């Protein structure tokens, strides 16, 4: 088993090598036409896999046109990989077909689950960090990688609660998952920050616990601060600019992991394309500065 996943991993690393060193942005339907018209200078584009599961019609066609000009990564939000329900074979088949059609440089899913007993919540729900959950996640990630014939990346999610059962920290869980399943990691620096604030840990502890070689992509996004009762809770909305503490954490991540393909995500209250392009340019400047400091 381990031989199989390491071969897979080596192959996938080769394939994922040409991801741009310039930051990318999330691909949203509102921007399709403008991206094709203007071809902004961004590193690459990341599509939510499920948005392009259509078998025909305009979405698939547009994706193919965009793919002709940009490297593309696929980011799944609905596979429910951490669920104890069986994996949805139709969903996996659709994902495999999309991968075959658009040859993405990276394919990612979340460290979460979203369904139980056949009912879907279509949200990224947290797992307890137990031995049982780790064994389950490792088996599921392997199953997906074997079905797709390639390595996937797993992304950490923001969370608003912790389970009393957890016997491990999230960072140790994530690192063990990558080690045992052969998956790569997509570190969402915003999510690390949000969870750190919500649960009271030092986000740098998280970064420092992740072995460098696992990290293949970084996400940056905005979040909101809500007051619940008398307590501030940060909610991962992907609906605003990256805040200063998250930029600071990104700098720390760059110093630890080196230059990793970085993506700006924005999913609600989607702004003009220029705003996203400017955020990506800012990420590039931050990365330049970090390189200068490291040198």
């Amino acid at each position, binding site marked *: 088993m381990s031989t199989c996943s390491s071969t897979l991993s080596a192959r996938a690393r080769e394939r994922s090598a040409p991801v741009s060193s310039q930051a990318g942005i999330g691909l949203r339907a509102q921007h399709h036409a403008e991206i094709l018209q203007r071809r902004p200078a961004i590193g690459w584009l990341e599509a939510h896999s499920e948005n392009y599961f*259509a078998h025909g*019609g305009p979405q698939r066609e547009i994706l193919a046109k965009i793919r002709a000009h940009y490297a593309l990564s696929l980011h799944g939000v609905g596979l429910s990989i951490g669920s104890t329900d069986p994996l949805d074979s139709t969903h996996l088949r659709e994902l495999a077909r999309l991968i075959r059609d658009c040859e993405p440089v990276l394919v990612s899913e979340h460290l979460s689950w979203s369904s139980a007993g056949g009912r879907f919540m279509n949200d990224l729900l947290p797992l307890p960090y137990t031995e049982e959950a780790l064994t389950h996640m490792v088996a599921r990630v392997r199953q997906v990688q074997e079905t797709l014939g390639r390595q996937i990346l797993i992304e950490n999610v923001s969370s608003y609660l912790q389970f009393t059962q957890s016997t491990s920290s999230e960072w140790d869980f994530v690192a063990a998952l990558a080690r045992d399943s052969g998956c790569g990691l997509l570190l969402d620096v915003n999510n690390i920050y949000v969870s750190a604030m919500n649960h009271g840990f030092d986000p740098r502890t998280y970064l420092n616990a992740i072995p460098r070689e696992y990290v293949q992509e970084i996400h940056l996004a905005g979040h909101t601060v809500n007051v619940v009762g008398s307590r501030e809770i940060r909610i991962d909305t992907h609906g605003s600019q990256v805040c200063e503490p998250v930029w600071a954490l990104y700098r720390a991540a760059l110093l630890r992991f080196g230059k990793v393909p970085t993506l700006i995500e924005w999913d609600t209250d989607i702004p003009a394309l220029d705003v996203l392009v400017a955020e990506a340019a800012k990420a590039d400047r931050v990365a330049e500065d970090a390189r200068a400091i490291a040198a």
Partner: protein
Amino acid sequence: MLSLRELQLSFATAVLDGSGAAIAPWIRDSGLDPTARINIYRNNFREGFLKALALGFPVVQRLVGEEYFRQLGKRFVSEHPSRAGNLHHIGAPFAGFLRSQFADTPYSYLPDIAALEWAYQEALVAPDAPPLDLTPLRAISPEKLAELRFALHPACKLVSSEFPIVQIWRANQEDREGTEVIDLRAGADFVVVRREADAVELRRLPPAEFALLRTLSRGATLGDALQAAQALAPDFDLPRALRHFVGLALFATVHTPNTQPEFQDMRGTYP
């Protein structure tokens, strides 16, 4: 200690059904009580679902207003929770749900509008298929013509209503004020929803043409479909209707009696 399975089922009960008693003891109470923490997830789930539903059914939302649409959506999701990771599918049972809510009320046109909007969504993502080539049919003897079976193009959907649903739909598009007065007794609509190039088009058909198409769509022979059309229009002009349909690319395939087994295999692939 809960197994992972038990934890997920209890968590789902809290998020979907609003009863968090089983999961609350397993959530850390650090600064904010477990119920408040679960409610963040319950709220995220509900808002995400309502937003996706409103995106799929903008005309229904505009007709009933945002606030009432939310109430309907909350009742709908409790009866028809999402069954897939892809939110596209949540709209499938919406017209049926509205029918159960509004049958025999002055709003009984709402389910038909929902059916039209669902057909629109389905047509948008349906598979592509090359237009039908009628050349092989020239070789068929006239007595065999009645045995032909046509399969509709996958991006072609049929919707009928006793109300003028196309007019209601058009009057409530984003770029229209929605102030137009529509007489609900203005007549029935027989609509074919089809995709052309990148856009979806709604087209009203004469009742007999619609009957022909609907009968064919259920797998019947051309002979049987013609009978259904003639029941509504005794002087029905079949060649003209077929030319019309082929011109609109409503058919994907045609099967002569000797290729029928192949056709039956293919039927299973269409929803």
